[in-house]
């Protein structure tokens, strides 16, 4: 896939949207006194991915890198659905 600046901007939005869901899940689990291990790990990784995508000022990533970021975000979404409690 050839990644355009619009595609990358949309990927950042998808990542942030998923981050909001994960943060909400963590808040709910904290309120319920449940362990948050999986969600926290996924949020940490997501923070790293969004940071990378937002700070690509020198165009260090190629199309394969962006596809890999997109796949990671997709996997995090799948994991979140597997472990979510709400």
């Amino acid at each position, binding site marked *: 896939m050839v990644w355009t600046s619009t595609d990358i901007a949309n990927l950042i*939005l998808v990542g*942030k*949207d998923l*981050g*909001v869901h*994960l*943060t*909400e899940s*963590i*808040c709910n689990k*904290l309120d319920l006194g449940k362990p*948050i291990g999986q969600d*926290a790990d996924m*949020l*940490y990784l997501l*923070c790293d991915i*969004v940071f990378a995508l937002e700070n690509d000022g020198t165009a260090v990533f190629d199309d394969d890198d962006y596809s890999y970021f997109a796949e990671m975000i997709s996997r995090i979404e799948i994991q979140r659905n597997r472990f979510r409690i709400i």
Partner: protein
Amino acid sequence: MALQIYIVEADDATYFKLYDQTVWVGYDHDLLTAATLTVVYDGTTYTHNILAHLGGGPVLGDATSVNMCGSSVNSYYEVHPHDLLSGSTPLNSTYFPDGYYDITLAVTYNAGALSANSTQGFLSETYQMAAQLPLQIDLNNFNYEENRLQFLCIAMLQGCKWAGELGRSTQFTKFTDKVNDFLEARDISGIWST
């Protein structure tokens, strides 16, 4: 033409930067007859007349371009809390309180109305409070669980910011409350709000 804006809060919360990312090439600055910023914060609507602030006449630019926020792509227009008025009451005198802000720039160009909206979670004070977290780590008696929780708090702050940017006001409030509970439990108090 689509009006596009970008907002960045200053680290010390004394102002926010308004970037105008609109492609104004080919537009005459004389035809821009109104530019008003509207900010909704905590249920109250505040406005600021940019055109009047810039001198009442046409905004910066020439017959082929409009430079509302300056001539460079990195130029910005500073909006201070005392610039934003609800009637005659300013939003604040010195700093922007942390919270959810719904910001709209409305302009009139050649008698046509254009507007752009941006929702933002302003979190400067919370960021500065959270910056004090590592001071609570005792290197001689390292608490791995506390270290992990502090890292989580910083990640949740990102969640707060993203919720603000995506217009999720309910989640923004919920997350910031959780982060502030975390900070208060560690006796970290407000920098300038207390």
